């Protein structure tokens, strides 16, 4: 089994390290050929507008969508959540995979970025949530489960094979969400 990390821009190395810590082979994905090699995909934090442009020019948008329709599990964190959403306030949807409405930079600018303790369904320890110019979820569609909330907004959501967080488990070496993703393969 090989875990993929979309490596166009952002903190993809941190995601790769989490997979490596879990003893899984990792492939950085920048091309269609690399995408074809992997069994699941993490979409990292970063700048969602930048990741979107690079994904389009690399011809990765439709291939990723197709792989997901064929059952490939995906975990998106922060910018990753934004590019997975069907509706984006303050931006355009990219992959339109998960039936959620997200609002970009919803907590404010960098001086409002924060960390806090979260309770995530299915994880038996408190999770340190690092929110960096983070999006929040304004609406969840049918079939979307909310696994964690903060300040009245969902911050971990799941829909079938798709998992998305507003914060960055990869930044602090939190492995449980990646483990959960691997369990879906």
């Amino acid at each position, binding site marked *: 089994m090989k875990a993929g990390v979309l490596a166009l821009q*952002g903190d993809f190395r941190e995601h790769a390290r989490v997979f490596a810590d879990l003893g899984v082979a990792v492939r950085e994905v920048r091309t269609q050929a690399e995408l074809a090699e992997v069994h699941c995909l993490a979409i990292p934090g970063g700048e969602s507008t930048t990741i979107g442009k690079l994904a389009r020019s690399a011809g990765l948008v439709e291939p990723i969508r197709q792989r997901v329709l064929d059952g490939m599990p995906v975990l998106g964190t922060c910018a990753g959540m934004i590019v997975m959403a069907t509706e984006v306030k303050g931006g355009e949807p990219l992959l339109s995979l998960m039936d959620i409405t997200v609002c970009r930079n919803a907590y404010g600018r960098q001086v409002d970025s924060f960390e806090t303790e979260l309770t995530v369904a299915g994880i038996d320890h408190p999770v340190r949530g690092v929110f960096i110019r983070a999006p929040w979820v304004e609406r969840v569609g049918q079939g979307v489960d909310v696994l964690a909330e903060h300040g009245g907004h969902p911050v971990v959501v799941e829909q079938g094979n798709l998992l998305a967080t507003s914060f960055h488990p990869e930044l602090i070496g939190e492995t449980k969400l990646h483990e959960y993703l691997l369990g879906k393969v």
Partner: protein
Amino acid sequence: MERETGTFTVKSGLAEMLKGGVIMDVTNAEQAKIAEDAGACAVMALERVPADIRSEGGVARMADATKIEEIMQTVSVPVMAKARIGHFVEAQILQALGVDYVDESEVLTPADEEHHIDKWAFTVPFVCGARDLGEALRRIAEGAAMIRTKGEAGTGNVVEAVRHQRTMLRQIGWLRTLRPEQHVSAAKELGAPVELVRQVAAAGKLPLVNFAAGGIATPADAALMMQLGVDGVFVGSGIFKSEDPAPRARAIVEATTHFNDPDALAKVSRGLGEPMPGLDIKELGEEGLLQVRGW
């Protein structure tokens, strides 16, 4: 649950999110829009690009607050802005404006020849320039959350950025070879705190994100710096002093992502028009160097 803002994890975390990206110098909202549309992961607001600061002379200061606000209102990517070395009040103003990162920059005229800003005192994170490992660790000791090579801004000549990155790599390699009892004398030689020296010796890398800056003018320059191990690139005069900024900006973004793929680099290096005119560093003389500002 309580929210903690301004923690070091949050400050350095934004730098982690910028990795693999290109941060572009912009002097107005129109340029900021071009940069964002080209795929910049952030923009740097300043009064004049380094090439103009170099040719026009005079004191270079923080950009006008109205300009910075216009840029912040125009783009959704993070907005950085430059403050003079040691000018903590410019930094306070930038924080009050809500910029996402402050660059305590040698490109502006230093306000203090002895002290850099105490960056721990701020909620907004700082990026600082460095020519070598000791300088990088001194800035980290002062609270910088991101490092960049200084290079030689406004020259369109990548040689100094290469020199600074290679120096950093050589010194990190040297620390790796030392025995623990040598760490204190290494710290003395580098002029850096021993705790940070020990950290680098153990990890074999800088503890923070390190971008390249100062002289990057082409997609090949950006990929060169990435292959030399930096986490991303700043492009100053290189874009808006070139013949056709938008396609060049896009090409540099592509080259920074596909830095290890010569076919992709060849593809993006076509038909970009004239790059900015370059300067030979030797002709600048010691007086003309920006990199020697700060210590």
